[in-house]
């Protein structure tokens, strides 16, 4: 009889139940989506911040002081120390290798250059000095464990925009900065002649793209590092390497000097991907180097990342609260509507306890069905939202399902508790009379 009563209340008035169910399911869907996105988005957000550019800079330890003004190093080519390009694969063998997102070595050479395109009826063409920046683009790096990794400057500095295409590795091609392109009248497809101060012959480079960075590179030429090495007569060497690594925002603990830490602390420190611990492990595989943290990037990244994460969680909590309130309210409403029914049951001899259990059973059934539907649609919702907003789909988590079901049951019961208590005090007679 009990089950029949419960079943009846669902089949007799499907429409009324349907709306409550829909509200419940949607509320739980919102909760599921918010939870799934927040649980999964932390790592992805850190990845997003890699568009800020490289956060580590590796330079030779025994280097003379760079004389760099406006991105141009005024040291003569034979001054200062160089590092071997062949060692760079080791960057992907460190403990934090999966956190190393990209790296690109740089070798700058002061060159003289002229472009035949700037030669026209009014001028005989400009021969002027510029900086040629040798680096990688879409370069395949052999890793000591036998695999390869493709990386390049377009990954370490994602804000560098090339109108045209990047140079191909191993070809005599280059991209030129936007300011350079205006000054020398060089367009994509032109041939650029360059020569370093210490060589005599002109090297021909084909311009394949125009680079705009908003930085000093706008005045320079960017070419494969092999070209720069040849011009500087430094085969297989580079001057510095930019590394883009996924890091954990720095906190007070991360700023401690590892030398003063206790063994436990040291272990915790080296097992957290702080930028300083990544720098430490890079120094170990590239001997003779200094690894600098690019403060401007790291601090900005850490600060904004912490903020955005907090925001995400707070929005999740607010969404959960609102969903709970709305669901609780509609659960309460669905009990309130049934005064007449309760009066009749009592008139027929049911006591308050039985009525309460009956209604609670109904609400629980509703909660589980609604919670289940809500979870399923919430997963879909999380996928859609995740893909549209953050560009990835969060993976469904089983524990979220249990959490949602528990939440649904709790909220509907809480929402129903208050009207149920009132219902238990109803006198059947006035209700049945319609008063």
């Amino acid at each position: 009889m009990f089950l029949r009563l419960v079943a009846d209340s669902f089949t007799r008035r499907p429409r009324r139940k349907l709306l409550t169910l829909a509200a419940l399911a949607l509320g739980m869907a919102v909760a599921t989506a918010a939870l799934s996105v927040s649980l999964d988005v932390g790592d992805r957000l850190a990845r997003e911040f890699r568009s800020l550019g490289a956060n580590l800079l590796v330079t030779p330890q025994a280097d003379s002081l760079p004389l760099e003004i406006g991105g141009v190093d005024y040291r003569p080519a034979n001054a200062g120390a160089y590092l071997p390009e062949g060692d760079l694969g080791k960057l992907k063998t460190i403990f934090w290798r999966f956190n190393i997102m990209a790296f690109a070595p740089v070798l700058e050479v002061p060159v003289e250059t002229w472009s035949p395109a700037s030669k026209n009826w009014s001028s005989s063409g400009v021969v002027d000095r510029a900086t040629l920046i040798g680096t990688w683009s879409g370069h395949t790096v052999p890793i000591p464990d036998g695999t390869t990794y493709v990386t390049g400057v377009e990954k370490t500095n994602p804000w560098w925009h090339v109108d045209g295409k990047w140079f191909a590795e191993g070809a005599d091609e280059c991209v030129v900065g936007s300011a350079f392109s205006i000054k020398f009248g060089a367009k994509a497809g032109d041939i650029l002649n360059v020569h370093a101060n210490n060589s005599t012959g002109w090297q021909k480079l084909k311009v394949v793209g125009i680079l705009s960075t908003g930085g000093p590179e706008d005045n320079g030429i960017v070419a494969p590092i092999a070209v720069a090495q040849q011009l500087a007569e430094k085969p297989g060497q580079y001057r510095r390497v930019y590394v883009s690594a996924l890091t954990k925002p720095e906190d007070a603990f991360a700023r401690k000097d590892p030398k003063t830490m206790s063994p436990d602390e040291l272990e915790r420190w080296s097992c957290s991907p702080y930028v300083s611990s990544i720098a430490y492990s890079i120094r170990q595989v590239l001997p003779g180097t200094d690894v600098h943290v690019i403060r401007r990037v790291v601090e900005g990244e850490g600060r904004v990342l912490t903020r955005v994460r907090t925001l995400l969680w707070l929005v999740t909590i607010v969404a959960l609260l609102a969903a709970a309130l709305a669901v609780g309210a509609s659960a309460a409403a669905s009990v309130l509507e049934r005064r007449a029914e309760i009066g009749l049951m009592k008139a027929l001899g049911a006591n308050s306890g039985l009525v309460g259990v009956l209604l609670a059973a109904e609400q629980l059934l509703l909660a589980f069905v609604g919670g289940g539907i809500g979870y399923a649609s919430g997963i879909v919702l999380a996928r859609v939202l995740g893909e549209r907003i953050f560009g990835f789909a969060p993976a469904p988590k089983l524990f979220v399902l249990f959490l949602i079901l528990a939440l649904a049951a709790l909220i509907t019961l809480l929402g129903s508790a208050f009207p149920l208590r009132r219902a238990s005090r109803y006198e059947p007679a006035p209700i049945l009379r319609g008063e």
Partner: protein
Amino acid sequence: MPTNPMFWRIVRRLLTGNYGRLFVILLALGAGAAVTSALLNLQMDAKRRLTTEFRALGANVIIAPRDTNTTSSGATLDEAVLAQLPSEYEGKTVPAVGFLYLIAEVTKDGTTRYEPAVIAGTVGRGLTEIRPGRRIEYSEALESDPSACEIGAKAAAQFNVQVGDTLLIQNQGRAAVCKVFAVVATGGTEDTQIFVRLKEAQELADLPGRISLIQLSVTGTPDSLNRFLSALAQKFPDADVHGIKQFAEAEGRIYNRISGLLSATVVLILVLTSLCVMAGMSNVAVERKNDVGLMKAIGGSVRRVLRLFLAEAILLGIAGGVAGSAIGLLISIWLGKAVFGVAAHPRWIVYPVSVAITVLVSIVSAFPLRRLASIRPASAFRGEA
């Protein structure tokens, strides 16, 4: 709206007929309104906050002479340009520092081996905002010294100097002395430079009244930054004014993500609210069959009856919206504090907007009441469904 007192009396009775339900519907509407206004306000605030956060990353505008890459002394700007820069933009101060770079021979006092280093003469307000990173050593007492200078961490290691040490600088027969008051670490090229007062650098380089470039840190959205840039470019046609793009792009992207997230949450919560209210209203519809039958029987037109319910829905929406949005604004102040460390500034435009949205949601949720229009009085009285 009718001025008929009877009309309002009926509306009042409709509203107060069932306090439990009134409370439930108001709760749902209020929750929706609170979330809407809190998140909308936060969204408006987030844009401003994020720009501020990213501005902490240092200079984002550079004014340089047209042609800088020829020689090390290169082209220079007139120092007077610095004085003509606006000190405020959109109510925020604009830190602006002029730099004059030169390469000079440097040694620590007491040693004789001179090595070349980049000397940066600085003048202007807000060097610490322009140059991100931190001072790893700093002595306030020495800063006021007329020949005080700062040194980058890498240069400090190279010359083996600490705060309080004296440096000797030489350039083409001209010499200067400076006393180190701070060591700075930025991870950038600043680490290799020595920062002196502009006068000193100008004397060393023999370029009186000249500077190499000006760096500014402008707070503002990407759009207002572009306006600032083009205004400056017009003012100084001889100089090359450009923005540093490295952070602008990431900033825009992250703001879009946040804003998308907040909008999606608001929309979802509003749909949820309206479903909940709708569930309540469909019960109301069932309950009011008799009332409507009676109204029609004594000559109330369908339109009049519907207007009655519309008035009820609007009143509910206003009540829920006014209370909920106010709570939402308070919540957003707290949210702003929790997220950005600074209380969010309540934007008053958010308040009417979220009240209006709530009223709209409430009207939409009263949709089930439409069924009442088609009730026939006779069948209602006979107790038929």
